[in-house]
């Protein structure tokens, strides 16, 4: 109840894209463009082992031989890959020991974004300080990771992946690329070649991670691609909940964000991965905004392992993203809960793939698309059943809500069943925000925008409830803000 109230307050109080400010941070760039030398530059900057450089160069070679995919239902100006910076980092002394050494300008940015980076405040119980660990990635590098020491006490490793490459090379080498190989797709190959940072998480056997883990991505520098790499490994019988948040300044040019996220769940392990994506969507005429081309995949390789993806996608000019699960383990289970909201000229082509390989594996897909303005939204999903996946089950529900006359919503479900015992259910609805509902809510005292926010939050409620409490409120606000002005 309180959350909905906050949504409504937020509509009244906030600007259209409140995170659109730019910041002047002294930044170190790699030379513009992409080449084997740039890949070497990045690897050297990070002080990586030789095998890592080889891995990157192999990815770069593969990328050169690949073509940008065109099958998604999105249109955008071609990206000039030689006109981008592949590395941008705030100038800093190396090896920060504490938060006090971080550039105060950067701390101010995170404070403005409402991201808690001050452990002391949290530990001291300062009012309003949320208790969750944060890895803050600014352009190409991680600037600070909180609660590392406290997490280490229970054996949880939570650190920038660049640091993990130095401190836990054996773990990184074992799992990196084991879920999303370098040759997986065009953007994944690009990411493998040039990724500069991201988060690394390892939860040891039997450990339930004592707090929410989160990474907060911020693109600040202009003309810069952000290529982060996240790797989460939940060892046998462990559990963790992880959240990523993203924002970027308002800039006229499009910016490329091509991330790769790999999750590995061993026997009886569970990973809950939530995303609140609020990249800059471009202006009212469709100028600027982030190209969000992301590969996210979970490998449920252990028996009875479980991965749950929850995403709230409100930002970006173009989204191309299909968080997926490979359900290898027996009785493994995959879930995908998605809210995709598009307004203005945004385009989103998003969905999931559930690849059932293990016996009695289960999957559940609930996708809610809300389209307004001149935007276009596509749900694209695949449920694939291997001959050995006896007793598998899937339930898919895709609901679309249209606001206004100029938006589009499409559902493209693929099913491949190669096992006679497969049980698949698919439900889909498309509705328009009804004038009856709007008037009813307005008659009871809600302004038009409050009414839209309340009705849309009702439409997406099933999915919203899957988010960790701390983030549900923010997500509800986002829903309201991203639909401002959608009813004329």
């Amino acid at each position: 109840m309180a959350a909905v109230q906050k949504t409504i307050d937020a509509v009244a109080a906030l600007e259209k894209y409140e995170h659109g400010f730019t910041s002047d941070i002294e930044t170190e760039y790699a030379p513009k463009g992409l080449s084997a030398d740039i890949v070497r530059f990045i690897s050297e900057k990070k002080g990586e082992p030789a095998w890592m450089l080889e891995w990157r160069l192999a990815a770069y070679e593969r990328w050169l031989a690949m073509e940008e995919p065109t099958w998604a239902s999105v249109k955008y100006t071609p990206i000039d890959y030689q006109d981008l910076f592949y590395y941008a980092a705030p100038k800093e002394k190396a090896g920060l020991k504490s938060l006090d050494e971080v550039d105060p300008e950067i701390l101010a940015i995170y404070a403005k974004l409402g991201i808690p980076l001050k452990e002391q405040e949290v530990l001291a119980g300062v009012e309003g300080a949320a208790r969750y660990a944060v890895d803050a990635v600014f352009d190409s590098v991680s600037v600070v990771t909180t609660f590392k020491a406290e997490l280490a006490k229970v054996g949880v490793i939570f650190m920038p992946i660049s640091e993990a490459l130095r401190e836990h090379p054996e773990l990184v080498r074992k799992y990196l690329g084991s879920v999303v190989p370098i040759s997986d797709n065009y953007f994944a190959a690009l990411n493998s070649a040039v990724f500069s940072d991201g988060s690394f998480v390892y939860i040891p056997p039997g450990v339930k991670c004592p707090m929410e883990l989160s990474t907060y991505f911020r693109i600040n520098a202009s003309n810069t691609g952000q290529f982060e790499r996240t790797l989460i490994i939940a060892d046998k019988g462990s559990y963790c909940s992880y959240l990523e948040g993203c924002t970027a300044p308002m800039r006229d040019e499009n910016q490329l964000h091509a991330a790769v996220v790999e999750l590995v769940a061993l026997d009886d392990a569970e990973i809950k991965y939530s995303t609140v994506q609020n990249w800059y969507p471009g202006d009212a005429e469709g100028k600027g905004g982030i190209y969000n081309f992301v590969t996210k995949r979970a490998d449920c390789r252990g028996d009875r392992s479980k991965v749950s993806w929850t995403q709230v996608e409100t930002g970006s000019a173009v989204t191309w993203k299909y968080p997926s699960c490979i359900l290898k383990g027996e009785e493994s289970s995959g879930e995908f809960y998605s809210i995709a909201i598009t307004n203005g000229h945004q385009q989103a082509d998003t969905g999931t793939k559930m690849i059932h390989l293990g016996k009695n594996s289960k999957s559940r897909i609930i996708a809610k698309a809300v389209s307004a303005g001149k935007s276009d939204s596509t749900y694209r999903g695949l449920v694939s059943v291997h001959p050995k996946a006896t007793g598998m089950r899937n339930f898919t529900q895709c609901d679309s809500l249209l606001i206004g006359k100029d938006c589009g919503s499409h559902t493209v479900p693929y099913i491949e069943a190669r096992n006679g015992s497969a049980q698949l259910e698919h439900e889909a609805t498309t509705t328009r925000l009804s004038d009856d509902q709007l008037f009813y809510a307005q008659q009871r005292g809600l302004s038009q925008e409050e009414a839209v926010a309340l009705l849309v939050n009702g439409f997406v409620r099933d999915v919203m409830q899957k988010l960790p409490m701390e983030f549900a409120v923010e997500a509800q606000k986002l829903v309201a803000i991203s639909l401002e002005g959608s009813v004329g």
Partner: protein
Amino acid sequence: MLKIENLHVAVGDKPILKGLTLDVPAGEVHAIMGPNGAGKSTLGYAVAGRPGYEATEGSVSWKGEDLLGLEPAERAAKGVFLSFQYPIEIPGVPALTFVRTALNAQKRARGEEEVSAPAFLKLVKAASAALKMDFDMLKRPLNVGFSGGEKKRMEILQMALLEPSLLILDETDSGLDIDALRIVSEGVNALRSPDRAMLVITHYQRLLDYIKPDRVHVLAGGRIVASGGPELALQLEAEGYDKYLPVAA
């Protein structure tokens, strides 16, 4: 007082209300009766400000303030409440959330302090008990899967919590069995007060046995064609609307 003068409302190209004039002083309950298609629901929508039901001519004021220039939410904040003939389902929004959001939106609009969650729950518990409603039902999405009777009770519950001053009840009796009708009517009667005016729209005299009107008006052909005391309702029950139809034609 509610003052409606020479109100003309067209829906699309079709004129529905054609010069309706009506006064309802505060403290009084007036019944609007009339045949199907006479414009009864249109009257309710026009006063509440439904888009598509704008006045082409005439005026509507409440307590001396013009309503026609206001948004529906602004009218609600000024005390206008329309109990719907067919209450709308709001999927995913629990009834409690909906009503509290509405109440606080109105309070903000009036510059009053918002109601806290615990205080609101206390209010709801008392009001729902009076209407013999199951409190758990209020945790469910508003009106979704509710029976016709439950929806009507929900309307009256919202009315009790929002404390409007101008109450328009559109066919509140339809879909109610006799017990529910009694409970709902008691709920409405509890809201009668010297500063409230009520407009009770109904087909049947039956409801007026429970909610006693001060005045009864016959709406036919988009106008008030006859007015009288409660006995007019009894007369209509006995004779039907036939004699008013030629007037309307």
